[in-house]
């Protein structure tokens, strides 16, 4: 969305009636400044989006702790329900705090007190969305959980 902003600014300016009539010095400077700002915004957006892509492409690997009902590993929560695995992102869906506590059969967010059951469904707010499920695979020897970025 943001990369359309420079073009949007220029079009907005060009559509102004005074511009259509006569290009004053003030208008020219405005166009020039807007162009420079738009240019840097464009560069900033391209650079940042590339970095974000690169960051999100990292694969995560960690040891599978068999039989452990809830494992907190890397950025994830692994639920082992008698051999049936579910992997969630450990970020609370309210404001992204890292959940690191499993208490009384509930996953609890330390920041604002949201609670989830082991299927990721919120039991207590402020969060109202379920935890984000993540696709995970096992390594060939079955000992490592691999989550592609």
């Amino acid at each position, binding site marked *: 969305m943001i990369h359309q902003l420079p073009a949007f600014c220029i079009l907005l300016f060009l559509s102004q009636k005074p511009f259509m009539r006569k290009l004053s010095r003030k208008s020219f400077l405005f166009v020039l400044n807007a162009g420079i700002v738009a240019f840097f915004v464009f560069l900033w957006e391209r650079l940042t989006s590339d970095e974000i892509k690169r960051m999100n492409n990292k694969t995560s690997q960690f040891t599978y702790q068999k039989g452990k009902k809830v494992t907190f590993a890397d950025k994830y929560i692994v639920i082992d329900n008698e051999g049936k695995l579910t992997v969630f992102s450990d970020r609370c869906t*309210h404001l992204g705090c*890292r959940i690191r506590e499993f208490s009384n059969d509930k996953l609890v967010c330390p920041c*604002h007190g949201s609670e989830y059951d082991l299927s990721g469904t919120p039991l207590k707010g402020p969060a109202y969305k379920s935890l984000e499920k993540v696709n995970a695979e096992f390594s060939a020897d079955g000992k490592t959980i691999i989550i592609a970025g």
Partner: protein
Amino acid sequence: MKVKLKTSFGTVALALLWLIIITGVILAVPFDVVAPYLSISKILVGNPWSSLIRNMHYWSSQLFLIVFLVHLFDHFHYRQKIGLKVGVAIRLSLGFLIIMLAMLTGFLLKADTDSQQARLILESLIKLIPWFGDTLAFSLLGSVENFQLIYVHHVATFTVFIVFITFEHSRKIWPPAVDLLLSLLVVLVMSYLLNAPLHDNLSPVNKGPWYFVGFQEILHWLKHPGWAVAMGFIILSLIYLVNTGKEKTSLFSKRSLLLLAGLYFVCTITGLFFRGENWRLVFPWEKDYKQLVLANFKTSRINFNPEFEMEMISGLPEIMGRKESCLLCHHQVKGLSESHNPEVIGCFSCHGGNPFATVKNESHRGIIKIPGNLSTARQSCGTAQCHPEIAERVPKSLMSTLSGLISVNRFVFNEQNNQDSLTHVHSLRNSAADMHLRNLCANCHLGNDKIEYGPVTEITRGGGCIACHLNYSPQAETALKNSRSKYMKVHPDINLKVTNNHCFNCHSRSGRISTNYEGWHETLLTTAEMPDSANYRLVQGYRVFTKIQEDVHHRLGIECIDCHHSYELMGDGKLYSHKENQQDVQCGDCHFSGEPHITLAKDLDNESAIIASLRFKNMSGKKLLTSQKFGRPLINTDVKNDTAFFVTKNGGKIFSLKPPAAVCTKTKAHSSLSCSSCHTSWVSSCIGCHNSFDKNASGYDLLENKNVKGTWVETKGTFKAKLPALGIRTTENGHEVIPVAPGMALTIDKNSYTNENDTVIFHRLFAPVAPHTTLLKGRNCKSCHNNPEALGYGEGVLVFIIKDGKGKWKFTPHFESDPRDGLPADAWIDFLKTRSGKVSTRKNVFPFTIEQQQKILTVGACLTCHTEDSEVMLNSLYNFEALVNKRKPQCYLPVW
């Protein structure tokens, strides 16, 4: 000459800004943005001058924020229009935002758990901004793996902007000298007395900086946090309007801002003083208030003359990403095994306190002297980085809840109508039944805190994790005795070497399985009466035991933990009403016929795998037996070439496991018998116990560990070691014959406690028992079929009389009939009769029915003539009915 006072909130803010910049530049020297948390802990622990600079940077910025806000509101006093130019007003409004961001990035640069969570919240909030939220969030915070961008913005972007705005706004570079000096003085005093905060990364409480705690409170109430972002824009707009709007607009904006500030103040107070772990409301009168709320304010002061040598700091190990000051004094502590090596986990992980303080009193403030007690387990053994799931399970296990014991006790006191309600020792109140337990039994639970140093002995009770895992070496005991020396050099170990002695202190009472297992039977002898013989043993200084038959497993060197695994002992997270429900391993798991139930070592669950590797190192390729009840692995077994082996966990002794005898499995005759009903050599049997409350005696409340006036007194009756009686336990699959003993054959003078004209309660309840007195060879046939005690009739003479061509059983009891129910004192049922209703300490355990008694006694009649190893009796095991039908004329069956 009059000196015009130039000081205002604005000039003080300018002075503080200079202090922030100067201290910030110097702080950049010891601060390491690659490992920020570690570098700050190093500053706190090992460099008081750096610490002073950090504190100055912190306190000058906190004061700057306060003075800046006051300065902002100071302007609002003027009723007339402020009328700034649009550009200046926009930059001023932005300045407010940038100052808050500069403060917040300073908070984030601590990189402790508070900061990391705050960073994630900030990221989520910025991402909510439409169109360029993601880009802006990444540009401000960068990759989660490092703090580079945050650092750059903190020291450069925001600082430059604030300096620019300040100059544009005030047209001043230098603050008045007086303001600078006064500010410096206040900041210096605060910096010396109060260290800037750093989270210990173990406390479960996460809070933002004090000026954003109100925001955290607001976010707690907001289902859609986008409203918080909108509110931020509204505040900035209001500040803008105050500076540029017409009179009415400006006044409205001021009033709105004041109202919002008031509300924010209330939220801040709530967040700071009434929110604890997981943002739960905690009030000052609650038990955990001090630890969950006030702990946030704990801070130490700078110590320029520490007791330790400053050179030692360079050798200080890095512990979970930080430096701890504890090891500067408590260095070279020996005794702990690798799992709890202080060089790896430090002291703070278990003992709490303040890991960054360098003054003894401050380091030891809030210290947990004896970690492992369940009351503090969540702050020591059970923290998120150590054993949280176990600390969660143990309080639910029967050894913590005492659910069965409490329920049965309330049942016999007629305070509840069943024996199986789930309850917890901490639910004990002041009823007659509960006080009975408080006076006599309520210290035998894991939640009872261990409050004195020293090894686990016959008289220690409870202790949570250390009830089982604490082991004092001789050196540690010596060190404890000589503990007047400055620092303890030898620490007791915390390990997996759980011995029978750890179980003995509690389990030598009630069912007495520990003493039974070792072959000790309690007598009614006093200490003075105890013979001087190796066959007698004094337990706890006053209980006299005599040596009789030990359990065959004990004779082989097998200890309690060789059979009982971690999910039995520490619970599996579920609540159980009785021990037989929680208990998993059965005789048949090791002594099986047919195909074994196995699992491969590589498929072990995480907990079993860790324990197995710690105990046995290499587990690769092992095939392990599993329990049949819950399918748990028995990590000390191994199946090789169709032979199952068993190894003791502490001693390493190896045995090949034997299948049960043919008589146990090859015939149907005894298929409903539990192994212990035959292989038990003896049980402790007690009858005639009387309970009354002595109001005038001095007593003790074992639950709360305090002296009380009045106590329940138990007057013991006869106490014998004998073969158990047998009873029936109904199960989902039918029923099984189990050993039982008179568990509650007693009287209770309830009126002595209640004064409500209660009659004396009389019960004749038998209890299922797990005697732990196993014999290799089972009891003989007659000991059941011809034994009145086995059938529940009690002691006496049971004879089969043949008269006039008819056989008839006759029983003459040893004890006289009790007038209250007409039964002999030691009987469960009358001869060839049965009972229902309140008959046992379980709702599913009953005496034999009349038909079952008749069946048993019919075989008993045969045994009066035929020996048990005779061919006819051996054949009877396969088809008794057919044999009876083909009996000879001289064989008489009993007539009923």
